[in-house]
């Protein structure tokens, strides 16, 4: 199994990967609380970006509503915790099931009726917005007044209930992100992964080759949405409060997909690099603007938008492909 995973990966690429991992494991010992929060945010976006990338980057279906799956995961686990005292690790499988089931419904409706491209993207927005407004009026989970997890000052880290200090959350999200990375790597080189790429490149041709495109697109959205749910569980227990206007807001969906698009759609490192760059950029801008006394509301986002614009215009395939060429870590094969 491991031999199969490593097959064809250049040795110095593995070395680099190990180095990055070691740095990420050691860094909390050196970082202050602020840097740690930023790193948590980066890894969070790397994880969600990776999950989104399965649907768009691998199978070629543009989803603009991934906040829905984060929200479902967050609300499911938080509601189970608040109402029934069920801990996050037991709640997570339930959250994944709910999220994947929702992905199945959306995928089934969309792909059965031949909804694709822009229309599919807008369908996903519609479901997310529909749920947001619905949750606003769903009082069992707090409605628009919000759902809150009990908070106390924790001297000890309780990993089982995900109650504790930022360092613990850092390692949890690092483990999730690493697992997602390995899983995507495995998926990309599996039979399913090759089917997805065939569908992404040319769906009629894939169908002509005998691939059941409907089934594999459904599989893609279910894996992608199910995989997004743990990020929601993390979100709920890290932030301790959930509001439909925030958790399910369309900008949340856009934030999720900016990383992989900037980093490189369909690549394994794209979501990770993109998350680092965008979150780093956003926080760095904040720092610079505050130092120069320019932090009027909106200023940071304007610069952020300009940077985004420049990247999309100059590097249409994202930042990772040129970096990969520079580091010479590209595998011989179409998936890169």
């Amino acid at each position, binding site marked *: 199994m491991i031999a199969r995973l490593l097959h064809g990966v250049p040795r110095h690429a593995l070395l680099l990967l190990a180095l990055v991992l070691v740095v990420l494991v050691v860094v909390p010992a050196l970082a202050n609380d602020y840097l740690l929060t930023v790193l948590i945010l980066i890894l969070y976006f790397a994880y969600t970006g990776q999950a989104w990338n399965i649907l*768009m980057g691998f199978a070629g279906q*543009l989803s*603009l509503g991934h906040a829905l799956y984060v929200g479902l995961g967050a609300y499911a686990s938080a509601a189970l915790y608040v109402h029934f005292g069920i801990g996050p690790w037991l709640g997570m499988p339930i959250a994944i099931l709910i999220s994947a089931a929702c992905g199945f419904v959306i995928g089934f*409706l*969309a792909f059965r*009726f*031949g*909804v694709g*491209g*822009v*229309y599919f*993207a*807008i*369908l996903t*927005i*519609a*479901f997310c*917005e*529909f749920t947001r*407004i*619905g949750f*606003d*009026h769903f009082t069992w989970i707090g409605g*628009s007044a919000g759902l809150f997890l009990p908070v106390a000052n924790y001297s000890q880290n309780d990993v089982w209930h995900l109650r504790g200090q930022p360092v613990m959350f850092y390692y949890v999200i690092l483990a999730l992100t690493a697992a997602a990375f390995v899983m995507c790597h495995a998926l990309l080189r599996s039979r399913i992964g090759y089917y997805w790429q065939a569908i992404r490149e040319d769906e009629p041709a894939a169908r002509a080759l005998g691939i059941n495109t409907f089934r594999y697109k459904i599989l893609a959205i279910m894996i992608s949405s199910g995989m997004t749910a743990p990020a929601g569980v993390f979100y709920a227990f890290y932030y301790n409060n959930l509001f439909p206007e925030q958790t399910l807001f*369309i*900008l949340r969906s*856009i934030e999720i*997909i*900016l990383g992989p*698009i*900037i980093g490189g*759609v369909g690549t394994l490192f794209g979501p990770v690099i993109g998350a680092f760059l965008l979150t780093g950029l956003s926080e760095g801008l904040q720092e610079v603007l505050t130092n120069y006394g320019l932090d*009027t*509301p*909106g*200023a*940071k*986002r*304007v610069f*952020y*938008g*300009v940077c*985004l*614009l420049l990247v*999309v*215009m100059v590097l*249409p395939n994202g930042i990772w492909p040129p970096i990969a060429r520079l580091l010479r870590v590209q595998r011989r094969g179409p998936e890169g």
Partner: protein
Amino acid sequence: MADGRLRQAQISSVSGDVYLNVAVSGVLTGLVYGLMALGLSVIFGVVRVVNFAHGEMMIVAMYLAVVLFTQLGLDPLLMMLPIAAVLFGIGYVMQRVLINPFISRPEHSQFMLMIAVAIIIVNSLLMIFGPDAQSVQTSYAFDSFALGPLIVDATKLYAGLAAILVAAALFAFFRYAPLGKAIRACADNYTGALVVGLDVKKLYALSFGLGAACVGAAGSIIVLIVDVTPPLGPAYTLLAFIIVIVGGLGSMPGALLGGVLIGLTEALGGLFITPSAKSMLSYGVLVLVLLFRPQGIMGRKLT
């Protein structure tokens, strides 16, 4: 008993009028929504780029109208054409400079571009005007017309009529003007248009400009009814999407019809359920249309 029944009859007759009034004001607001969506439809129908910064362009127009009114006392309805002209210029330049290189790129790339533009617009407006709502108080803001049991707000009536006027002008342009015909040719058959020697790039820029001009007119009209804040931008983008998809992406009458339908749904939804849940119904309508008639009510069959 009899007394109770009488009161009930009174209530139901009163609420019958209420429904009618709400429906009419929903239709009038919907016409303005339709004009905004018409812009999106023109852009998509010709350039084949989905303008994710559409609502943001709308609030640019709204702020222009508010500034012209508060600083110079100019009525938004009179300023409709100048503002539309300004937005035309913005749209034309945007297509020429930003969007043209993206025409042949994949959808997610175009999407990113427009999102970046949207982020820049919304937050620039936030920097300039702050987060507070700004509104226009015209002298006729509280006037209304009574037609039997029907009471129509003057602002909404003027807004609806202005929207119809602009839409009619646009229809006429596309139907009779040679330039309009050329744009339609471009939309129907790109290669064919190139073969007969049309300057497609210029026509694309023109179409984007026209779409933006629609939004400009709609924006300056809608400040009569709605207060403007920066977060309204993304909300209008979504609204415009719902409308064009319900009406049929790329169909001009469809956009107007969709606007009226969504305006009506929102108004009645606010009355029947709660105002905060009104757009849930619109999304419900959208999902139904996407599933059972993906090309929209008046759209051509998808191929």
